[in-house]
């Protein structure tokens, strides 16, 4: 296995923007995306704020050039994947061996949960099969791969909140093993009643706007969206007229092995993932200029992540922030969306703000950035994604 892997482009759709540029403007103008539920039907409407993509399925389908009746997860995925490819300047896909590695957590559940209500009324014949035919996580990926004409290598990863980051790792390996030349890697997830209620049973949702890394934090806000980067080999990177955004210089995946949903108090998995990513990139902690935190806003995550950061980075803390304070927690999409933000941070010297921050956590007084800025000297960025099942992943992006 040889060679480097570069980021040739990226695309995002989420609660703060229909495309990447719109998201940057939201950061610059401090406009987080969580508000009252508009599109999802749920008894929690008006109670739990969410960061929905501000478009209904008809609008998304038109943008994606896909049928309106398919899963919102697939529509979001196609939109972001299209934007990512377009931004890469790679031209026609037919010239390359292209892979598509997409992550999601509940597949076409937005449709399945509607189907299931009808099915339960009248089992086994109730419900329209069209709504459940693309239930599987992998089916959502294939809907998009088929629409984009990608079939050389297609796969789907599901490791809860770290899924998208793991997609980049697998994609990178595919390139370095010469199985593909280019990979669109990242993740997607649409808001569903299943997920919203599931998280609600864990009592980790905040009825107000979330406050990652703040001492008063009481939980997360769910979001939705999709984010993909275009990974390319050395040979392809050399052909890019504008050059790549940056290099995927390091990554690591470790397991907390502590509890199914909670992080260990000292953030063992988090620490191992960050340390492993640094080691692979050959960097020292003080080389990192910005960390895109996992930063969900729950008591437990931010505490564990904060402690792990202290253990690894003290006393030289980089700038850091949780973009989930704007986008909400987009689950399977988060690793992909945040990879795009992180890669762009290297290219444009961006430090993203952390919304709703006023008071550092008593347990570990880290102070996130609270304003957007670009043009900073950002040679290396770390992006963290820590999920249920103890799945912890960390990515490092570098200028060269």
């Amino acid at each position, binding site marked *: 296995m040889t060679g480097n892997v570069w980021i040739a482009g990226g695309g995002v759709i989420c609660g703060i923007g229909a495309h990447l540029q719109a998201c940057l403007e939201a950061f610059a103008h401090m406009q987080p995306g969580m508000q009252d539920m508009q599109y999802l039907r749920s008894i929690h409407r008006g109670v739990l704020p969410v960061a929905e993509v501000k478009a209904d399925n008809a609008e998304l389908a038109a943008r994606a050039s896909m049928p309106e009746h398919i899963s919102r997860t697939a529509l979001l995925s196609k939109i972001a994947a299209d934007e990512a490819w377009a931004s890469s300047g790679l031209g026609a896909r037919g010239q390359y061996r292209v892979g598509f590695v997409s992550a999601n957590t509940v597949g076409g559940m937005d449709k399945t949960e509607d189907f299931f209500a009808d099915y339960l009324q009248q089992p086994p014949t109730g419900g329209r099969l069209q709504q459940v035919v693309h239930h599987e996580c992998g089916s959502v990926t294939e809907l998009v791969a088929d629409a984009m004409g990608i079939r050389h290598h297609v796969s789907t990863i599901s490791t809860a909140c770290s899924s998208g980051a793991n997609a980049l790792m697998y994609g990178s390996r595919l390139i370095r093993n010469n199985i593909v030349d280019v990979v669109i890697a990242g993740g997607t997830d649409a808001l569903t009643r299943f997920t919203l209620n599931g998280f609600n*049973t864990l009592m980790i949702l905040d009825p107000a706007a979330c406050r990652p890394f703040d001492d008063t934090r009481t939980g997360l806000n769910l979001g939705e969206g999709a984010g993909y980067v275009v990974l390319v080999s050395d040979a392809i990177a050399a052909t890019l007229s504008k050059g790549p955004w940056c290099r995927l210089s390091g990554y690591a995946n470790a397991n907390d092995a502590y*509890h199914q949903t909670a992080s260990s108090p000292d953030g063992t998995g988090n620490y191992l993932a960050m340390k492993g990513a640094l080691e692979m990139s050959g960097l020292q902690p003080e080389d990192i200029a910005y960390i895109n935190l996992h930063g969900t806003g729950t008591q437990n995550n931010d505490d564990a992540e904060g402690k792990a950061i202290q253990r690894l980075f003290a006393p030289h803390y980089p700038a850091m922030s949780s973009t989930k304070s704007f986008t909400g927690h987009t689950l399977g999409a988060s690793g992909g969306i945040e990879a795009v933000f992180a890669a762009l941070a290297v290219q444009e010297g961006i430090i993203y703000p952390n919304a709703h921050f006023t008071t550092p956590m008593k347990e570990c007084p880290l102070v996130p950035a609270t304003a957007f800025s670009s043009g900073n000297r950002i040679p290396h960025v770390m992006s963290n994604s820590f999920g249920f099942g103890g799945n912890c992943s960390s990515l490092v992006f570098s200028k060269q």
Partner: protein
Amino acid sequence: MADLKAQIVEQLNLQEVKPEDIGNDQPLFKEGLGLDSIDALELIVLLQQHYHIRIANPEQGPEIFYSVRSMAEFITAHQKQ
């Protein structure tokens, strides 16, 4: 408390534990019955479902659910008529 023990066994799907095996003052969490934070959340729903008591803050869990007796006392104190 006998009813409460039966409800606990059912809600938490405690296999091979009979309600009468649970001591009134036996710690439910960690070493005692070995319950964890997910079980605490299950018990919060149990209180709501059977006794109509809402607990907004899961951090109160360890104190309320220390033992069957502490749970029973909490229920008696807070149960809506």
